[in-house]
């Protein structure tokens, strides 16, 4: 028995990273499909749910990638939330004046401004990174009124439906990519939707996922997703990326090889803010072009969680963002009487049982008892069909963030010099 099992883990270790990701995705789909059928909760993989997930995943993904650029260069950026809020405000402002593409660019500029302030504080003045990030959030106003409220009073109040807490909004979208037989349309049948309707095991769920993606394929979704390979290419295949990562691992070594550490760090932190701002702009576009105070709802921080979950790698961040985006969409769509949350309990049971099994095999008694206990509790919740109060369902993304970070933060390797205030001439 032991031999075959160690065979499995040896096989797993022999796999390349992309293949592992594919297997994880397939297993996840099978799990979802199983939970959907046994709990009779079609909402779990409905095309609408997947479509929302793709949109709601993007701001988190952008914040995560923003965090990646910052932490890979050695700067912790908890100001991502504030930069995302700046992104939403500038997207609202620019969108009102220049339309949807203006909103995207405005968001990027707004976020980059926030990144610039963070760079000034952490790189130029050498302030503690966490403190600097917090101060940016405070100044921008993620924790209540602040800069954005003041700016909104100045520039939105009295214009159309604008007020101190929201921008007037605009009509129009960035556009949509249409593919015959895949896109929702009145003229051609949507094949994916047809397959999805049959509710077949896994097959229909896959069709629904693809339908959720292709059905209404907005350009900003495509742009957002393209950022994953782009980021990978910049960070791991260009000279700039190499010097950027070397600053985050061993700044003094990078310095001795002629890298201008300060300049690379400042640039990376500005890029980091720009990504967070882009995430904010996507939120604005999704809200029919209107900036709304509190719109980012901690997504900048959840992006940081996705970064940690993803082990400071682009595809890992994508998986994390997809998980959080999925729960976010579930939270928005779930109405009372919906069984989706109950189906989630079933997934929870299977996953925690797997952890218990793994702990038992590894001989870690304490972890096994802990995981078994969690399994039992979640199983009980599933059996009694515990209906969580609506307010608790609203907190799902935050709960998911906590649970996922707790389950995953053991075997991670952050950049070695992340969080270090480096000064030229310093050892480190």
């Amino acid at each position, binding site marked *: 028995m032991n031999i075959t099992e160690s065979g499995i883990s040896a096989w797993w270790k022999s796999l390349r990273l992309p293949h592992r990701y594919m297997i994880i995705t397939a297993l996840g789909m099978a799990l979802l499909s199983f939970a959907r059928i046994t709990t009779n909760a079609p909402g779990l993989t409905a095309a609408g749910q997947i479509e929302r997930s793709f949109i709601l995943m993007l701001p988190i993904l952008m914040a995560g990638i923003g965090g990646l650029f910052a932490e890979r260069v050695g700067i912790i950026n908890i100001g991502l939330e504030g930069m995302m809020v700046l992104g939403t405000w500038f997207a609202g402002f620019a969108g009102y004046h220049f339309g949807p593409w203006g909103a995207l660019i405005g968001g990027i500029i707004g976020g980059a401004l926030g990144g610039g302030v963070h760079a000034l504080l952490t790189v130029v003045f050498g302030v503690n990174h966490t403190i600097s990030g917090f101060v940016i959030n405070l100044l921008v106003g993620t924790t209540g009124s602040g800069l954005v409220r003041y700016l909104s009073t100045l520039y939105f109040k009295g214009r159309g439906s604008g007020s101190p807490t929201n921008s007037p909004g605009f009509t129009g979208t960035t556009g949509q990519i249409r593919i015959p037989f895949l896109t929702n349309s009145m003229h051609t049948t949507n094949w994916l939707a047809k397959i999805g309707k049959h509710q077949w095991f896994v097959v229909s769920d896959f069709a629904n996922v693809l339908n959720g993606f292709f059905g209404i394929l907005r350009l900003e979704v495509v742009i957002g997703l393209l950022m994953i390979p782009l980021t990978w290419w910049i960070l791991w295949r260009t000279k700039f990326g190499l010097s950027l990562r070397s600053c985050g691992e061993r700044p003094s070594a990078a310095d001795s090889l002629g890298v201008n550490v300060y300049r690379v760090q400042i640039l990376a932190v500005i890029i980091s803010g720009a990504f967070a701002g882009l995430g904010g702009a996507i939120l604005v576009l999704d809200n029919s072009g209107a900036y709304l105070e509190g719109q980012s709802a901690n997504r900048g921080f959840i992006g*940081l969680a996705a970064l940690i979950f993803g082990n400071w790698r682009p595809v890992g961040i994508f998986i994390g963002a997809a998980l959080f985006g999925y729960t976010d969409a579930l939270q928005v769509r779930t109405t009372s009487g919906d069984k989706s949350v109950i189906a989630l309990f079933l997934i929870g049971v299977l996953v925690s049982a797997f952890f218990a099994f793994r702990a038992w095999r590894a001989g870690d008694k304490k972890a096994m008892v802990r995981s078994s206990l969690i399994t039992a509790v979640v199983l009980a919740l599933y059996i009694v069909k515990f209906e969580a109060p609506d307010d608790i369902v609203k907190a799902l993304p935050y709960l998911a963030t906590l649970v996922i970070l707790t389950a995953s933060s053991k075997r991670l390797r952050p950049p070695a010099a992340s969080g270090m205030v480096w000064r030229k001439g310093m050892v480190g």
Partner: protein
Amino acid sequence: MKLKSLYRSAQAPIIAIAIALAVSALALLVGGYNPGRAFSAMASKVGSVESAALIVNKAVPIFLSGLAVSIGFRMGIFNIGVEGQYLLGAALGGVVGAAVDLPGPIHVLIIMLTAMFFSMLWALIPAVLNVQKNVHIVISTIMLNAIAVSVIAALSKTHWFITTAFRQTRPLKPSAFFPNLNTPLRWIGIHLPKGTQLFGFVIVAILVGVGYHILMGRTRFGFDIMATGINPTAARFAGVNPKRTILVAMALSGAIGGLIGMAGLLEDQHAYRVGEFPVGFGFAGIAVALLGRGNVSGLALSALLFGLLERASLGLSNAKVPREFSAIMVGLLILTMVIIYELTTRKVQAQAIKEASELLAKTHAEKVLA
């Protein structure tokens, strides 16, 4: 000598305030407002006895919050969760307080202990997750803030809450009111106008502040916390158990956090009203902790400054400036303050290194000559 060091420690805040005011004035100009008029309108709101009492009232919860945050800061933990901790504590304190009927002091004490207990429990979640699973405390506390708001919202749908103009806990009986300080003030000849009170909770805040000072400066535990903050590895070799220190410090921080909402609950609103109970003290506490740098008098002064700004911001509307502008002033103040602290610290360090190397060179030269 004493005067000189006083001057030196006051220098940084004064420069920071001056820069923050200058940048604020610039922001006002950009917005098309007259900075002179705005500042004088703000100044006109402070200065009376009444406003002094209100400033102190405002400073009390912020000071307590600053203490709660500072405990974490001392050991290098950035605890953003005080906001959720105190709100949850206050809500449950309100629920329990309305459910029991006890003679005065015991009733008050039960409510305070309930709030402290639940606030502590909420603070222990990120602490345990950090110690056991290495979960990032900044992220977990932010998530827990959001979850606390949801928990309170869910709680407010239960039978423990009633509907008036708001969803609120049943009003507290007078036995659960914390006495104010208006009578003692009258004895010394200060008469507050009708409807204004000076919170008796000032006394509690002062006691907690003194306790914090003794704990941090005079006990082994305070030393452990500081040692862990400065150099965790060295602290561990010196026999400090870092996990235990984190747990105890976070529990303590949470317990103090439970007191933040008590002035509002026991002296002002006498019920927990959803959407009406004062929020934001947790974040103000972080700002105050950054300004006060973990020392009690610094924290108290910063909290009073916050109370002052909050009160003065009422004058902004007289100058037709949106009230939110005071939040920008606060943000700018902290921004300039952290920069200036950083620069002065570095200057002091550079000076010390220079002096030491000169001394070394001198003794070396003397040796060679001899």
